[in-house]
């Protein structure tokens, strides 16, 4: 997988932003509220149409590609304001995202029962495993709408991982999740990175987590990228301190 390069121009919310995400890295995307981070995610994954720029993923030009195709190529995102399938069960929410489901095609569903039944069992087991990893397996049979906000974040994470992604874009994945579980999930993600080469780009507001665990940090403010680099570099970058990390009030 080659570097991901993103350049947008002409869109107000994201004005000429450019960055790469290194394969196999855990990269944080930070910035004040309204900086354009979620918009950047939307543009990258095809949910909003960019006015200009270019996006490459793993050698593919995915600029303005449909979101479902980008997802199937291996770049998957979660949502800041969770979007779950309310009137479906939690486990159905996860099973939906599995790749290679023959039964998802009408002709197979009608005529090739044996083909999809076996795969369905596999998908079910894998979904249960994922739900257990994120800690909500006891809710597997419940309607997704009954989950709390934090639990929905966990469901979205499980759903994203179900697609066997190469790159996950996690939009505030730990918002509303208790800190202990949050740490455990971070370890889980780091394990996936080590074992499977999963690349992670996440939006996060908790600076301890960001500084402590990221390889790379990208800082956005007012639609543009104002800094990037290792935690140490970013932490001491005056532009970042000004815009985000809490500038000291002007000395009296």
């Amino acid at each position, binding site marked *: 997988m080659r570097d991901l390069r993103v350049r947008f121009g002409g869109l107000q919310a994201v004005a000429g932003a450019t960055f790469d995400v290194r394969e196999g890295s855990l990269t944080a995307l930070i910035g004040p509220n309204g900086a354009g981070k979620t918009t950047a995610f939307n543009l990258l994954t095809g949910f909003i149409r960019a006015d200009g720029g270019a996006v490459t993923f793993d050698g593919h030009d995915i600029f303005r590609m449909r979101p479902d195709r980008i997802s199937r190529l291996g770049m998957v995102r979660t949502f800041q304001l969770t979007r779950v399938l309310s009137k479906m069960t939690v486990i159905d929410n996860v099973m939906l995202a599995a790749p290679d489901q023959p*039964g998802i*095609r009408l002709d197979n569903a009608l005529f090739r029962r044996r083909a999809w039944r076996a795969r369905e069992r596999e998908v079910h087991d894998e979904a249960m495993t994922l739900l257990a990893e994120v800690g909500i397996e006891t809710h597997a049979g419940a309607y997704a709408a009954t989950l709390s906000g934090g639990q929905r974040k966990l469901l979205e994470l499980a759903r994203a991982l179900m697609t066997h992604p190469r790159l996950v874009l996690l939009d505030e994945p730990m918002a509303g999740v208790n800190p202990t579980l949050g740490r455990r999930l971070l370890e889980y993600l780091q394990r996936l990175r080590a074992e499977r080469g999963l690349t992670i780009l996440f939006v996060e507001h908790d600076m301890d987590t960001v500084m402590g665990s990221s390889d790379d940090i990208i800082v956005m403010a007012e639609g543009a990228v104002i800094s990037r680099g290792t935690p140490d570099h970013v932490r001491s970058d005056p532009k970042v301190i000004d815009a985000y990390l809490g500038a000291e009030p002007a000395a009296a």
Partner: protein
Amino acid sequence: MDPLLAFGFWAFVLTFAGIYAIFVLGLQVEVGDTGLINFGHVAFMAIGAYTLGLGLTNGWPMWLAIPAAILAAAAAGLLLGIPTLRLRADYFAITTIAAGEILRITIQNEQGTTGGTQGLRGASGPWREFNNDVLDTFQGWGIDLDRRVPLLVIVWVTALLVGLLLVYLGRTPWRRALRAVRENEEAAAASGIPVLSYKLQSLALGSAIAGLAGVFYILFSTTLFPENFEPIFTFVGFAILILGGIGSYFGVVLGSIVISFIVSGTRFLDFPLDADKVAALRFVAIGLLIMGLMAFRPQGIFGKKEELHLDA
């Protein structure tokens, strides 16, 4: 009351109910499964009915004309869907009413081909022959059947088969994808589901089933008039959906029988009012039924009450 008259009444009502059941099963796929509010569903029934009618009057055999009618309806569904399914739900609904009316008015104006308001006749010849053959066969076995029975049985067997097919499909990953499209298109897309494709599949299948209902409609009514396919037919279909419970196939069956009784059965009963007023009152009754359901039992007979309170 004359027993034969009583049987004739029920044969009429139940056959009509069976046709409506098939029609609404198609609607259930679109509305209940995929969340597509299609107010023009009757147009596809019209296409099925007129295709069969025109096919038969042009000498096509039944075994060719019937599949042609169903395929024509499915194709029309796709044709409608391709430009319109990108619209937001409410705009899509409005567009479908327009599409239905455009079709109906076209049929009405193409007097030369379709008979327009004079009606399409002559399509029932092959069916009458078949019907007589069946009756003769049973007579040969010593069973005297009323001439309305074969159609009644065939319609309901078909409704049952379509229902069973949909129940079977209900447990597949395919249906899960449809329901995901209904619940939240963005979540579905993020999970790799090509949303537009599934909406089109749903519309094609729903339209094909409506076309099948149209096939039986023309066999049932023998003469076709464009007025039979006004939007009110679809709205009554929605009443059946609501009554039976959105998402329930069995509810469709029960709802069809109840509504069919109200709509067509009351034609045979004596009311101290003239026919126009009775016709109007029929629709008042359905309107009141819908209002009553919304107030006291919005999930319908077989819908799931819990699902009502789940927000996105």
